[in-house]
């Protein structure tokens, strides 16, 4: 990130030190409270970014978590007599619990759309406001915190509030940066681009969304507690107002929601701009100005300021990065799943027992029994609509089974979530490549190396793995491109690299050859052979018969959701029934 070089790190440390010293140096309260407002919005906007910026689930309900914090602090100090400082972590906990509860309800909805999430979170704000104003928590008259003794470190109350705000803003930034650089952040960015694929690649999407939601709400709750101390007199109208989500969303978009520092940059710019208006007693004009800039920014600069800036910086720094892949020696990287016993033999890796899938009244699979042997290449063929892709989707856990079971290595995997199936060692590719479009090719592959399988986790450096599999698929020089810059052939090979980086025991390939030119098909066939030579078992769905005959050890023919034939390629494809389903009965007769 931008903070890595030593001079800029020194400068940032110096700025932070000066900020901490300000109250002790006797800065006037007016400036302290002005800066506090900046910190407050930095913390709030940054916390919003942790869920909404990274994962793309835009919450319009940030006021709910902020308000939960405000009222937790207000109630506990005035009614229970707790010390103010103690209520800050408690407020964070209450807000996080609230987020967890809401998340459990809404994130379980499989087809939850972004707009629904936004509106639902907005509704929660109103519900919470109604509850607070109708119960003794507020009672409709507001809560006066005038009697509460506030801490006075940093020489005065405003100094203390200022320092708390500064700590919170720095804390929020640190948390946000930490999240972005961790597995959680990688997973959230993948969810942002394509949640289904993220799940199939091993990202525990539900858990990650809940975690991000809780972290985001906790920071907002803590900000609420501090704000309660700052404001002193609390009303439902001011707390649960639309201003909070409006400002937070705008600040994040202006700065760039996908970057950890983006919301903070936007928050600083807007708070300073608003301060100029409020200074001249034009609060209403300021609000209109913010609204107007929201419109302009979204129309003209949908990506925000930070990504633009970073793109500039990155152009300068691309040189050393591009040199790195060359340093990798191909021989050093071991073949896939080397831990597996070398004796491929006849042992069964995957077994489908009576796998049935009904979509409403339509039966897509009617009891398929199929064994996949360790180390083999099994081709899955059949006419369109015969259930090939459905079977792949069932094995990878995308659809729940109507009946039957799927067993991998003696373990029943039929009731597992897709990400758990992925971590058991099953990887798949998509017929139409579904890459994470906002991530570079390298990051696409790296993500799958991180989340792919549990047996290799922690031992290998995901960066090295990603470089290895990109070299393996011949994409090393495209590593830092975005997927949009690739052609279909290259996109399919990125799909390969992603699947392989997970070091699967079983690789499911869904029509990888369709749409490729004859020479590209030959290349892909060579690649598949190389993969098998590394010890990976492969099941592939294919219409290109030349490739089926060239690659497969055995062919399974599906027709109307049933297994029609199974055996060596040449003989199976010449069986009368198989010819019938492919060419029509009349032709065979």
């Amino acid at each position: 990130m931008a903070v890595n070089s030593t001079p800029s790190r020194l400068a940032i440390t110096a700025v932070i030190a000066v900020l901490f010293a300000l109250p002790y140096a006797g800065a006037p309260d007016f400036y302290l409270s002005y800066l506090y407002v900046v910190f407050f919005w930095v913390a709030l906007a940054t916390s919003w970014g942790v869920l909404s910026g990274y994962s793309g689930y835009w919450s319009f309900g940030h006021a709910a978590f902020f308000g939960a914090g405000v009222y937790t602090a207000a109630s506990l100090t005035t009614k229970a007599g707790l010390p103010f400082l103690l209520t800050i972590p408690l407020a964070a906990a209450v807000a996080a619990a609230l987020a967890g509860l809401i998340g459990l309800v809404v994130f379980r909805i499989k087809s939850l759309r972004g707009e629904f999430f936004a509106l639902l979170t907005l509704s929660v704000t109103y519900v919470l406001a109604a509850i607070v104003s109708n119960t003794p928590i507020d009672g409709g008259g507001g809560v006066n915190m005038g009697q509460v003794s506030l801490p006075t470190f940093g020489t005065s109350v405003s100094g203390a509030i200022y320092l708390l705000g500064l700590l919170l803003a720095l804390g929020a930034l640190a948390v946000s940066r930490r999240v972005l650089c961790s597995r959680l952040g990688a997973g959230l960015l993948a969810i942002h681009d394509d949640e289904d694929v993220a799940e199939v690649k091993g990202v525990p999407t539900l858990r990650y969304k809940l975690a991000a939601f809780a972290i985001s709400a906790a920071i907002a709750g803590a900000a609420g507690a501090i704000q309660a101390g700052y404001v002193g007199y609390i009303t439902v109208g001011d707390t649960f107002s639309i201003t909070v989500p409006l400002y937070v969303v705008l600040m994040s978009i202006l700065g760039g929601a996908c970057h950890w520092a983006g919301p903070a940059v936007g928050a600083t710019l807007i708070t300073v701009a608003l301060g100029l208006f409020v200074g001249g007693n034009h609060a209403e004009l300021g609000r209109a100005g913010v609204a107007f800039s929201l419109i302009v920014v979204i129309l003209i600069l949908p990506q925000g300021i930070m990504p633009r800036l970073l793109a500039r910086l990155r152009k300068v720094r691309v040189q050393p990065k591009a040199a790195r892949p060359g340093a990798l020696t191909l021989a050093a990287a071991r073949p896939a799943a080397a831990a597996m016993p070398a004796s491929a033999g006849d042992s069964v890796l995957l077994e489908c027992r009576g796998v049935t899938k009904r979509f409403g009244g339509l039966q897509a699979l009617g009891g398929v029994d199929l064994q996949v042997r360790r180390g083999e290449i099994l081709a899955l063929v059949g006419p369109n609509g015969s259930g090939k892709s459905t079977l792949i989707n069932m094995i990878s856990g995308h659809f729940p089974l109507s009946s039957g079971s799927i067993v991998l290595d003696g373990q029943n995997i039929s009731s597992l979530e897709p990400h758990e199936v992925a971590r058991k060692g099953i990887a798949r590719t998509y017929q139409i490549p579904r890459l994470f479009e906002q991530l570079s090719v390298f990051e696409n592959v790296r993500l799958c190396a991180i989340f792919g399988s549990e047996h290799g986790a922690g031992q290998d450096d995901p960066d090295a793995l990603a470089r290895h599999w990109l070299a393996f698929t011949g994409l090393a020089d495209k590593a830092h491109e975005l997927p949009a810059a690739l052609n279909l052939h290259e996109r399919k090979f990125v799909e390969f690299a992603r699947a392989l980086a997970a070091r699967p025991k079983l690789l499911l390939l869904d029509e990888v050859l369709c749409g490729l030119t004859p020479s590209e098909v030959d290349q892909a066939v060579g690649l598949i052979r190389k993969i098998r030579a590394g010890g990976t078992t492969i099941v592939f769905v294919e219409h290109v018969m030349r490739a089926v005959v060239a690659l497969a050890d055995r062919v399974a023919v599906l027709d109307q959701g049933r297994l029609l034939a199974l055996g060596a390629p040449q003989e199976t494809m010449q069986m009368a029934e198989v010819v019938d389903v492919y060419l029509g009965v009349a032709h065979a007769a």
Partner: protein
Amino acid sequence: MLLAQSALGGLLLGGIYGLLAMGLSLSWGLLRFVNLSHFALAFLGAYLTYQLGTQFAMPPWAALLLIAPAFFVLGLALHAVFVHFKVTEFSSMLVTFGVTVLIESLIQWVWSADFRKFDTPYAQSSFQLGPIFVPVLELSAFLCAALLAATAWLCLHRTLLGRALRAAAQDGPIAAAFGINARRLSYGLAGLCSASAGLAGVFIALTSTLAPSQIEAWIGVVFAVVIIGGLANAPGALAAGMLVGISESLTMALVNPAWAPLVAFSILIALLLWRPRWL
């Protein structure tokens, strides 16, 4: 008897909810624009009705004749901006959020933040149906909503133009390949949705107290109504409006008026958990 009276009140309130929800539902479902500024437009319409009525003594129906075409043009202009900048479904919500705040500021600037009430001689007029009093204004709002819902449904499902609109909403490029000029249709629909906001505004001016902050109070409930009724479904929006309206009034009568705002969201959350097919 009190219950029957409040149920009727809720039913008629549901008419106004439905009136507001229809425009939103159609523009969300068919144009893929989540138009938050619909509420602000309705309130702008309400304030204009108030102004024309109090300053120039213009009757509401005449005000409507002015407001509806003006809002049609306003809707066209807003849609033109969206189309020009290729605003996505999600960004449309953010942009119109901004427009809402802008209009709210404008209203506050012109009419101040104070509550306003448009007093008309017929504001309290009602007739008696057995033991129940039926307020005339609310009833006409409800009838307008019902008429609009029926017209919208007939247009969308029984005319070539309506079918073309639905096809364009489901897959724009394919519909265009079959010769549907989605662009012109979408402009027309955007204008009509905006005009319907003006109509709702006239009734809001006649039946409730006006304040800029009231805009936000409607957003939550009406969006709940839109989602409950199903997107692009005008009769559904009206039915959902009636459901929410009646539930709210009964809550007010039986439990406590202060809890009424919770009703719509409780229904919405219950529905989202149960997930019927139309959602």
